């Protein structure tokens, strides 16, 4: 999303908000639905059909599951406990087929549109091992907007219906849940039970929702346009021409990419959350000061939180607690240390999680390696944990002392940055080359080369400092938004106007700037 697109989006949200407020309460959800679809059709045109297919299949799946539940409730009356159990199993099997059918159908859409070219290139590579050359067709289709986001949210909804976590909604409720426009670009992933009631509430004007929502949207815009797009100048240069650089410049490029990604991704999430605030809707949290993490697992509990929660709910727990795993655990019970009873199912489930996470991030071998990188770190951490706990116990060292905390934060930051190198590098070989180049010393002057001007370097530094300061305040539970909302209305208005002016004056757009593609966009 470049600056013009963000500005257009904010204008669109303003128009929707105005019309929304003019309508009676019952009509407001339909207003959101209509404008979400208008937004989608303008952006993705005929690819909207895939959004419709997902909505229809999960809606019908929910209906099917609910009908089976109603049938079971009727038939179980008067049965003995064992007969009820057997009947429950029979209906569970039927519901599972509906669920599997809908999941396979929707993942197939995603697989074809997003991964077709990747799979065919893998197949070509496989054939080349046998000296068979084949030219596979190449699919040249733009991805439907947000397909990786809304597909997972929709599947999560259907799984929740199957689990009995929710009874499912009417067609328009499901349609709005899947297509709600603020979350289409970069999420966050939504849970039906949390989001749908808010979407249907038709909340009217609320001063705090209005000011708070606009404040959040503008802060997100500043993060994206002033900070992220400016950092992209240095990052783009270093990663595109890495063979010309080494040592400190490579390190700076990687670290600045980490902050660029954080500023952009969290900025666009802020815009989505701020927009939703206007309508009295609270989207799921997606970031929680991730660079204060003391371990890689903690980092992934603080970074892209909604994706982590989705994978935990729908991949990690189902695999680690599957019937097969529980049977294995029962066999191991009393014969092996509990460590293995936890480690084995967790390791298998985590492999599925990280392969999924890697592939979700992109169609390429590089992304699989990216996922496996974090997998091996987590497995290693699980193996080391009992030893390090023993060490702390034997030595009497307090593992929560400040020095050790800072060491763990620093180590986690370094590990995360290596992950970011894998993610951002143009290719896997490029990532390894850049890693090697870090240790060859030397430095080059980006300003002297004309890559970036002094003013932009200063703004980059200030931007990174601003991100860090805001996160420090949040980590100390200082609520900046609450502080803003406690001001008088005229002061709040001045601050908001000032933020808009700040974007216009200091945004990295216009002559001399090339707007970068959104990193998490086109997912």
């Amino acid at each position: 999303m470049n600056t013009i697109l963000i500005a257009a989006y904010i204008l669109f949200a303003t128009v929707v908000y105005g019309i929304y407020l003019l309508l009676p309460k019952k009509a407001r959800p339909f207003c959101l639905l209509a404008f979400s679809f208008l937004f989608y059709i303008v952006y993705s045109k005929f690819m909207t059909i895939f959004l419709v297919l997902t909505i229809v299949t999960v809606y019908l799946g929910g209906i099917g599951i609910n009908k089976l539940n109603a049938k079971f409730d009727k038939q179980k009356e008067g049965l003995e406990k064992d007969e009820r159990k057997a009947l429950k199993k029979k209906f569970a099997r039927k519901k599972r087929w509906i669920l599997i059918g809908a999941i396979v159908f929707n993942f197939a859409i995603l697989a074809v549109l997003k991964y077709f070219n990747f799979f065919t290139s893998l197949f070509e590579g496989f054939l080349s091992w046998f000296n068979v050359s084949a030219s596979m067709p190449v699919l040249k289709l733009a991805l439907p907007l947000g397909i990786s986001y809304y597909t997972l949210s929709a599947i999560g909804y259907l799984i929740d219906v199957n689990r009995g976590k929710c009874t499912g909604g009417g067609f328009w409720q499901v349609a709005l849940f899947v297509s709600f426009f603020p979350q289409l670009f970069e999420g966050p992933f939504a849970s039906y039970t949390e989001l749908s009631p808010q979407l249907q509430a038709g909340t009217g004007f609320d001063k705090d929702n209005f000011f708070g929502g606009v404040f959040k949207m503008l802060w997100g815009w500043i993060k994206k346009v002033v900070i992220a797009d400016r950092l992209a100048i240095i990052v783009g240069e270093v990663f595109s021409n890495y063979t010309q650089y080494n040592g400190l410049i490579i390190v700076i490029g990687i670290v600045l990419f980490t902050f660029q990604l954080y500023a952009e991704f969290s900025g666009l999430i802020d815009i989505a959350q701020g927009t939703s605030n206007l309508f009295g809707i609270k989207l799921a949290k997606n970031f929680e000061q991730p660079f204060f993490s003391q371990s890689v697992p903690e980092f992934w509990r603080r970074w892209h939180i909604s994706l982590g929660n989705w994978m935990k709910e729908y991949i990690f727990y189902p695999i680690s607690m599957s019937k097969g795993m529980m049977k294995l655990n029962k066999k191991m019970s009393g014969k092996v240390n509990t460590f293995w009873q936890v480690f084995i199912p967790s390791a298998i489930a985590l492999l599925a999680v990280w392969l999924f996470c890697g592939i979700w991030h992109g169609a390429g071998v590089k992304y699989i390696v990216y996922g496996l990188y974090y997998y091996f770190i987590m497995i290693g951490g699980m193996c080391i944990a009992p030893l390090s706990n023993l060490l702390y116990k034997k030595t009497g060292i307090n593992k929560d002392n400040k020095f050790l905390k800072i060491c763990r934060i620093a180590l986690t930051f370094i590990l995360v940055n290596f992950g970011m190198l894998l993610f951002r590098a143009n290719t896997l070989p490029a990532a390894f080359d850049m890693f090697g180049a870090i240790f060859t010393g030397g430095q080059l002057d980006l300003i002297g080369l004309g890559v970036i001007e002094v003013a932009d370097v200063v703004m980059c530094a200030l931007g990174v400092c601003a991100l860090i300061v805001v996160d420090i305040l949040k980590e100390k539970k200082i609520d900046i938004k609450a502080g803003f909302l406690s001001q008088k209305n005229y002061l709040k208005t001045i601050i908001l106007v000032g933020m808009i002016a700040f974007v216009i004056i200091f945004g990295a757009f216009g002559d001399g700037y090339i707007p970068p593609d959104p990193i998490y966009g086109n997912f």
Partner: protein
Amino acid sequence: MDNMDKLIEILKKIKPNVDFSKEINLIESGVLTSFDIIRLIVEINNEYDVEITPLHTTPENFQSVDTIYNLIEKLADED
């Protein structure tokens, strides 16, 4: 040792420094991570001969000692 005491003993094995009699937000406050939940479920399934499935791994069921205990009793009744 009654069932509640057994449960507290299991929780203390997983997180020795936590006062489980006072904690009521074990999941939301991050006291119990997903790995802790898996370990807890393994220990509960072993100790109480119940079967906790992914259907039950909701934050509501694992927020406190009391909610975990209620889950165990409910599953024991179903079995």
